[in-house]
């Protein structure tokens, strides 16, 4: 399956990109995806990050589906 991955703030800087397209083998959850990204992108540390799928917050156990947009970012600091 194909998914879009987004990074923000310090993770965007560490990944040196805002956006990736990835082809993945299902079934896969957010934690598995994070592990794969950390393996492929040295220096990108996702531990402690939050994740959203299709603009809604999800926990690391959440399963990923074809076509999802998956965002990784540090704890938010807006307001």
């Amino acid at each position, binding site marked *: 399956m194909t998914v879009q991955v987004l990074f923000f703030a310090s993770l965007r800087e560490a990944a040196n990109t805002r956006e990736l397209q990835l082809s993945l083998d299902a079934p896969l959850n957010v934690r598995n995806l994070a592990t794969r990204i950390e393996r492929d992108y040295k220096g990108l540390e996702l531990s402690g990050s939050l994740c959203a799928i299709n*603009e809604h917050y999800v926990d690391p156990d959440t399963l990923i589906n074809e076509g999802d947009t998956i965002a990784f970012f*540090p704890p938010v600091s807006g307001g």
Partner: protein
Amino acid sequence: MPDGKNIFVVTRDGLDIARFMAEVSDPAFGAVASFLGTVRSPNLGETVLYIDYEGYEAMIKTQMQVMADELRRGLELGHLVLAHRLGKLKPGEASIAIVASSKHRKDALLACQTGIDRAKDLLPVWKYEVTEKSQTWVKGNSSASTPL
């Protein structure tokens, strides 16, 4: 009584609080409350030059809808504006605005109070603070979901 409307704003321009108050004002709702967060300087003893706000714009609007639904479940609200500014803001400039009207004063005030707490939890925005001495991503804190 008219139905309450929601207005969600994500912008790189200045937040026009007078316009937001006009948007929520309605003879049916006798109370209007607002909260504005502005860039503070000095912060932790250092003079701030600016804060650059990065945001995930589509998700900010989605989460504003989540916030509005939550607030309306608990409170009897009239109209509601949720607004966040992005980009480089100088000290004193407003980064966030919550403006609500209600029939009774308690509801609009609680919408601002609960709203700013939830906004800090839910809105995907990150502050890059540039002071005279340093430039850093401000450490965030959110209970929106379990971190990795």
